[in-house]
């Protein structure tokens, strides 16, 4: 039976979809069978980040409504045989989701895959609730910035109240990724440090990702940055995916000076 992990943030634009694509590919690289599902109904984007936009035939709403089988809707990744993708509906809106259908859909995926990664929509409305409802774990993405942290705190509050495993009396496992860290700014006191963010949100860390211009280039081409072994964000995603797969990988403090130095070195490469 697979593990279902929701990727959430509260605020939009902090890197949820990028994280979903990279973590899913990283898990697949660990030889685990992984499916990544776009739950952002009406604003499908994960297909482009994965470079699979031309292959979408059926979406998850059609699967949940019984108009298509999972087998017909599922898309195999071009870069890793263990990675599969299911697209969001682009024409419907997120109010079409219904708990019993979502539950059945996720149960089917759990049977087939070691990991089921759900890319949540931004916000804390019904679409978000349906994404977290039947998840076993959640990964929260924040940027070191006040509005992202505040919205993440709200999203965590709802996660703690609405997830089915919480209603059943268990805790939901949740871990934080701090994305788009500028080491120079943290060092000069212009950006919140990871320690400050972890203290405020009172949550376990899963990884720290430095700001990396390569992210835009990666999504331009539909090739997740984890494939770029030289990129600092790509390396951070390798470590994060390994941790998700249960490997004991120490947290690299990307905010320290050595991080800055390696960044400078890379400029001269």
């Amino acid at each position, binding site marked *: 039976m697979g593990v279902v992990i929701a990727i959430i943030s509260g605020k939009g634009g902090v890197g949820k979809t990028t994280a979903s694509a990279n973590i899913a590919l990283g898990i697949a690289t660990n030889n685990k069978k992984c499916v990544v599902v776009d739950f952002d109904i009406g604003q499908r984007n994960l297909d482009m980040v994965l470079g699979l936009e031309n292959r979408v035939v059926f979406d998850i709403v059609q699967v949940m409504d019984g108009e298509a089988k999972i087998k017909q809707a599922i898309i195999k990744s071009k870069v890793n045989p263990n990675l599969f993708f299911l697209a969001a509906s682009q024409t419907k809106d997120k109010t079409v989701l219904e708990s019993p259908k979502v539950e059945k859909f996720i149960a089917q995926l759990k049977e087939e895959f070691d990991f089921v990664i759900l890319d949540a929509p931004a916000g804390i409305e019904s679409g978000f609730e349906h994404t977290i409802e039947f998840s076993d774990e959640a990964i929260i993405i924040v940027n070191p910035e006040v509005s992202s*942290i*505040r919205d993440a705190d709200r999203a965590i509050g*709802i996660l703690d*109240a*609405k997830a089915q495993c919480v209603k059943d009396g268990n805790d939901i496992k949740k871990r934080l990724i701090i994305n788009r860290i500028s080491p120079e700014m943290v060092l000069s*006191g212009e*950006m*919140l440090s990871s320690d400050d963010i972890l203290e*405020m949100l009172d949550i376990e860390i899963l990884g720290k990702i430095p700001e990396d211009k390569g992210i835009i280039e990666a999504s331009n081409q539909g090739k997740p940055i984890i494939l770029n072994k030289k990129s600092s964000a790509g390396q951070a995603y390798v470590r994060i995916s390994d941790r998700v797969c249960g490997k004991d990988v120490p947290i690299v403090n990307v905010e320290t000076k050595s991080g800055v130095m390696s960044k400078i070195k890379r400029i001269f490469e």
Partner: protein
Amino acid sequence: MFDFWNNKTKTNTAKVAKNRLLVTLQSDRHSVKEYPFMEEMKAEIMEVIKKHIGVHKVEVRKETENGIDALSIEVQLEK
């Protein structure tokens, strides 16, 4: 070298952000409307009680005591 000089004169805005967030998160967490479904839940509770007795108003508050979260529900009956 110049960075070092600037650090001394520039205000530490990260510290400002942290202090502002600490206050805001605290008030967000204790606000009555902490959950977006609070209004919906109130309406549903009202419907259930109405089956048996006339209800004027339902108030739901989230309270935290000794680290335990609880919902306090106050039902005002119709006169």
